[in-house]
């Protein structure tokens, strides 16, 4: 048998056929093994992230002690003391509650408006044109830049805050929802229409669940925008209004040069942001898109 190698005309080395029994696999040990406690702890995201957080806090504490300038950079321990003190005497809770009220109103309002606009946008071409143009115009406009206008229209108080929060939520959520709707696979759309679904039923039963990963991402971004806008707006308000939320708390502390309080205020803002992100949004994701295999 003279087989010629396809390359260079070299004759191929003859290789004999063979058969054999598969190796004895019982020597591998357990096919399934529980991970060791250390491996399991290291596999837990929360634990690893807490590790990062603790390292940061240690760096903060060390730097603040070394800098030794409580007016500019208080230590973590002083900040924590101030935080706990203000939490226990109710100031912080009170301020947070004052902040959360317009926040919730604005956030929900923004989402409802976004839902209406995007539903119109998917059901008619003119609706789509309107939404795309509006989003292109207003999305880059910082919410805080419309605050002066809001103050002229609604005066000092909650309506102005709600207005700017809606502005910050509406465009971000609309944009991601529309993007989500547009990237729903054609076949899924067709099969939805095959069942005779039309209009609002089609949007609610096919488009929204199919686009849910993008919609949820939009809701998260909207939440972050809303929270930012609120604190910023309150800082501006602080100059002229007496009862305020967390932004006002920070502003007041700065005016009195109580830097630990400024830090405690910022700390609260971060804490609430983290809480919403890691508890509420995480739970929604686990119950929906992760269970459906639309996101890992």
């Amino acid at each position: 048998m003279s087989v010629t190698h396809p390359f260079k005309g070299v004759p191929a080395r003859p290789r004999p056929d063979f058969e054999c029994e598969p190796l004895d696999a019982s020597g591998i040990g357990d096919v399934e093994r529980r991970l060791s406690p250390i491996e399991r702890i290291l596999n837990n995201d929360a634990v690893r992230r807490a590790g990062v957080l603790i390292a940061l806090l240690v760096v903060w504490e060390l730097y603040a002690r070394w800098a030794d300038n409580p007016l500019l950079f208080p230590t973590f321990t002083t900040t924590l003391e101030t935080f706990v003190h203000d939490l226990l005497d109710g100031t912080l809770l009170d301020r947070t509650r004052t902040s959360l009220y317009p926040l919730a109103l604005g956030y929900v309002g923004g989402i409802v408006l976004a839902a209406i606009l995007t539903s119109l946008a998917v059901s008619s071409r003119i609706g789509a044109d309107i939404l795309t143009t509006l989003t292109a115009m207003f999305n880059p406009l910082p919410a805080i830049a419309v605050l002066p206008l809001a103050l002229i229209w609604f005066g000092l108080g909650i309506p102005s805050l709600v207005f700017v929060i809606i502005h910050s939520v509406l465009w971000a959520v609309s944009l991601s929802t529309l993007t989500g709707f547009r990237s729903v696979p054609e076949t899924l759309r067709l099969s939805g229409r095959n069942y005779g679904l039309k209009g609002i039923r089609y949007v609610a039963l096919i488009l929204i669940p199919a686009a849910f990963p993008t919609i949820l991402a939009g809701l998260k971004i909207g939440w972050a925008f809303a929270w930012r806008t609120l604190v910023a707006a309150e800082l501006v308000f602080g100059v002229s209004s007496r009862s305020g939320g967390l932004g006002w708390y920070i502003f007041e502390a700065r005016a009195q040069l109580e830097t630990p309080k400024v830090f405690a205020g910022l700390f609260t803002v971060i804490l609430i942001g983290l809480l919403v992100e890691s508890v509420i949004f995480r739970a929604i994701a686990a119950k929906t898109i992760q269970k459906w295999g639309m996101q890992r």
Partner: protein
Amino acid sequence: MTRIEARPLVDVRDVTLQYKTPEHLVTATYKVSCQVEAGDRYVILGPSGCGKSTLLKAIGGFIKPVGGSIVVNGREVREPGPDRMMVFQEFEQLMPWKTVLQNVMFPMLAAGKYLRSEARDRALSAIEKVGLAKFKGVYPHMLSGGMKMRVAIARAMALEPDVLLMDEPFAALDALTRRKMQEELLALWDSLRFTVLFVTHSIEEAIVVGSRILILSPHPGRVRAELEAGALSYADVDTPEFGALSKRIHSLLFEEHAAPSALTPEPKLQLAATPR
């Protein structure tokens, strides 16, 4: 449903279908006519890209013909509806947010044709028939491509539409499952006598599954022939009749016969179709 009707159940007359993209106008089918009678297993066979899926989508009501008319059950097709259930060629036709059982039940509930308990029973028996009873509570992302296809088939059958439109439903299945599904489809047809339009580009599958075979020319799809194949099944694969028919279809598909627009013949018509 065995009632023989005077007029065909699906009446396609001189249908021309086009896609308009920003740069191109693609003619998918040109003046295609065919009549499907109640109880037919009507196979549409043709090389890849000749417009089979497009024709099926037009009958489903998803694409408007630029010329000609499509009448199903005496009514002109204007929009999609649950009386024409479609099994698509692509996998992503299942709703990822619903379990297998919910996916099969959904059209029955959405169409308002059945009560919830009734829909559930029908769905369960349809899932049983495609061999997925064990997976009824599972979400689609945990299924293989072939299993997803079987769910889509169960979903379409459970609704008992006037016409079942199937676009290469078995192309993605492995040879064994494909054969099992073909036999299952034939057995179901034997007991229910539904009407099915079935697209394939496997000659063998066309002869085994079909009772009538419509052969389309290469792109743009035009009618090339319509043949009778009701008498042949898997048992006859080795018979001369089967071989003769298959050879005839083969030459109809590939002969360069007055087809100036067919630039090159399709590379090779595979017996086992590969999904895109």
